[in-house]
Structures are given as structure tokens and as C-alpha cells.
């Protein structure tokens, strides 16, 4: 199967590969997928405590080129967004941007899930922490 130029571009020059300290109170970590399904995405966001905006994001992905490209794109898109705005990112937008074929739609679903999981992780952390950002 031939890959779109955008998938190839992200695969060859993935944005924001790496990891943050998952114990940092301003970092939210989402890990979705499973090795036996052939895809695991770890997406992390780092929120600026003053603005509440996502100031940085990182990912690591085990998966095919489309999975790598979807997560790379997701880290680009969440940067600079509020948590609410990041939650609004839909997998269909990723499909469109990367021109993913139908068999690769699940990669975009996984990327959307990874964003949601990272945000939920951050919110859970903040809810449980004695001192939160906005208190």
C-alpha cells in the first residue's frame, strides 16, 4: 500500500518524540492500545500552570507508519490549546489531514483516545493533589 506524502513526512521527521517525567504535576500521560493489537501510543501533555494551556507535548508510539504519523500530528495539534479545545480534536480531522485509507482509521482513533487519556490523567492528578493549579 502506498502511503500519503503527509504520512511519510511525519514518519521520516516525527515531531515531539520523547518523554516527560510522568510524576510532574503539570504533565498528563495517556497510554492507549496494546502490543498484541500492533499499536501502543504514549502521548504526554505539559500544561502551563498560569495560562492553563498545553505548552508542550511528546509522544512515543509502537505501530505502523500511520500510527506514528497520527500521534506525531496529535502532539502538534494539542500544543497551544486549552484542555477543552484539545478534547475537541476529532479523529476524522486526523484522517483528513493525513489522507489515511479506511484500514488505517483505527490509528487516528487511537490518537484521539491518547489525547483524551492524557487530559484525563492530568485532571485526575490535579483533582487528587492537595494543591491544584487554580486553587
Amino acid at each position: 500500500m502506498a502511503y500519503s506524502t503527509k504520512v511519510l513526512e511525519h514518519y521520516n521527521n516525527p515531531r515531539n518524540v520523547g518523554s516527560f517525567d510522568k510524576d510532574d504535576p503539570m504533565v498528563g500521560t495517556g497510554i492507549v492500545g496494546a502490543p498484541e493489537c500492533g499499536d501502543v501510543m504514549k502521548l504526554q501533555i505539559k500544561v502551563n500552570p498560569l495560562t492553563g494551556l498545553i505548552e508542550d507535548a511528546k509522544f512515543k508510539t509502537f505501530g505502523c507508519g500511520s500510527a506514528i504519523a497520527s500521534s506525531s500530528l496529535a502532539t502538534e495539534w494539542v500544543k497551544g490549546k486549552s484542555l477543552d479545545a484539545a478534547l475537541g480534536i476529532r479523529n476524522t480531522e486526523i484522517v483528513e489531514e493525513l489522507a489515511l485509507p479506511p484500514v488505517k482509521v483505527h490509528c487516528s482513533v487511537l490518537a484521539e483516545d491518547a489525547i483524551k487519556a492524557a487530559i484525563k490523567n492530568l485532571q485526575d492528578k490535579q483533582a487528587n493533589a492537595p494543591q491544584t493549579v487554580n486553587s
Partner: protein
Amino acid sequence: MFKLPVYMDNNSTTRTDPRVLEAMIPYFTEKFGNSASRNHAYGWETEEGVDLAREQVASIINASSKEIIFTSGATESNNLAIKGVAAMYKKKGNHIISAATEHKAVIDPCMRLERDGCKVTFLPVDKYGLISPQQVADAITDKTILVSIMAANNEIGTIHPIKEIGAICKAKGVLFHTDATQAVGKIPMDVEDMGIDLLSMTAHKMYGPKGIGALYVRRKDPRVRLDAMLDGGGHERGMRSGTLNVTGIVGMGMAAEICRKELHSESERLLKLRNRLHEGISTKLEDAYLNGHPTHRLPGNLNISFAFVEGEGLMMGIKDVAVSSGSACTSASLEPSYVLKALGLGDELAHSSIRFGLGRFNTEEEVDFVINDVVRAVNHLRDMSPLYEMHRQGIDLKTVQWAAH
């Protein structure tokens, strides 16, 4: 220098040898007759070409030329053998024995027969992909009419103990079919010595053209009879009607002839190249696991799982190398290779597998290039693999609760 991408997928198909093509060309141009035309010279000269090719094909498996039925390829040969025996011998029994790691062209005809009232036993394999002769002996019942076990596996290259299985079938009076698509021309195959009653083969895996194959059908001790699938002009002893694909047949004959003459030197050369590839990769990369049997395997086949890296993603990273993966990330089912799963390999390692198929036209320089390219790509992908990160942190991936999607 060599042409990129390096072709290392010779278990899928092979390049037609220029000597084969040369033999075929006259049969497209001046020798275009129908080999069944008995009344003029055009027919006679093509019939001569077909006769020679039939000898050449028979000779590579130590058969008689009268026992060769030309088909469109191994898929048709397998279908004809399995369905043909099931239909012809249905009064004798309805039980067929095969293996879990067979090609779909054997498994699916068996499954269709199962829907039509046959019983099929798919024998499990060991961790190397091997069937033991004892398993076959234990599975045979008084209803068994056919055992169908491949000679060598297309994904992992494992070579089954065909001679021992053949002897058991003979002793029990059960017909023995082997799908030898990957084996013929690569390792010695001898229908007499191995007790084979039906054998499927195809030209394009042995440097011949696509669209032509053959089924060996034993003529004596026992005389095997088949119910034909194609009715028509009664070609090929009535077992496969249809005007003969003369150009393909001539090409298959020449391909078999070359393989027969060069088999020993060629398999030695391929084994050396494969060992170089295997050693080159495994000395430079940790957690690269061999799939299949370490020694009972096709000389040109190397199947490796690169832990923490997904196969399709890896193939994208080695775009200058043409190989296959056991990952099925492209399929809607998300199921990895059933052959690798049959070995008891975890799904994650099945997703991480790459099949290298070395062939006649590969060189040492190409092997060295592939080693470097694979090592570079695996390291690059491990750097961005969350599984590798966890592994490095000492987390046992088997204990992690994954949120499967």
C-alpha cells in the same frame, strides 16, 4: 552498486531468470500453435516444447513425465489435489489431515470441504513450526483419505519430515499430498524416496513465470485418481481441461532444469548469505528473535521478530529493502500472521516480524546493505517505542494492563 530497493522477498515471488525468458520467447512468436492440434506442424512443434518441459518438471522431483498435470499455479494444484481426492474417494472416507501452518490455498479448500461434510484435522506445530510423524500417525483413522502437509513453510521456512510422513501414509494406505511450492528447486524433492502421491508446485517461486504450475499425480502404487474441477477438452489426462499455456509451460520447464542443475551450489551460496544476514543483524541488535527452525529450514529464508518495533512500521523505515512482515496492520482484522501464532509466539512478537527471502540474484553487498539499513531503522524506531522505553525501565510488558482498542 546494485538496484534499489534491494529485492529480498523471494518467498513471495522470484524474478524470471533471463535464460527462462529466452526459452519462452519463440513460443510467443513463431511457435504459437495449439499443442493439441495433432494435424499440422504448428501443433507438433509446440507439443514437442511441452513434452520437453514436462520431462524437465518431472525430473526435478524424480517423477515420470506422464505424472505431471499443468495448472495455473500452486493454488489451483492444491485445490485440485484436495477437492479432487475428497470427491473421488468419498466412498472410502471423509477425513483429511493437514496442519495449522499450511498456506491458505490448502487451509481454505479443506475448510470448504468441512462445510460440505468432510472432517479435517489441522495438526498443531511445535515452537519451531514442525509437525512430527507421530502426530500424523496418531491422527489417522479408518475414515482418513488424505494427508496434506507442506514440504516447507512459506513464512518461516521450516522443512517438515516429509519422507517419514510419507512412509506412515504408505503403511496406513492413506494418500499423501504435499504443497511443495517453496521447496521445489530449493531443496531436494523426490516423490519416490519420500512416498509422495500428490505434489503441488509453481514456476514463479523458482525463477519461472507467474500463472503456471503443476500437480504431480502418482500413476502407480497406488494409481491416484482425481475428480476434475474443470471440464472441457479433456486435456492433462482429463484432470485439467483447457488449452495448454505453452509459453508458461516451456518457461517452467527451463526454470526447473536450471534449478535442478544448480540446486547444490545455489543452496550452499544462499545458506552462506542467510547466515551472514542473520549474524550481521543479531550481533548488532538485541532482542531480535529467529522464527522457525534454526536448521530444518529453507536456505534462503530468514524470519526475525524485532521486539518493541512493529513490522509494518519497520518496513516503512527500510524502504530501500523489499521484504514482508507477519504484522497484519493493513488488514481490517488487526490479526497478525496465523503461522507465527501457531508457533506460540505472542501477538506482539508476531506483529514485529520481518521475513527476508534470499534468492538467486542476491549478492553479499546487498546483504551488507540490508544489515545496516535494518539495524539503523530498528534503532530509530526503538527510540520512539514506548514498549522499548518500558523494557529499559525494567517493566515486564506482560504484567501491564493494556487498554485495548
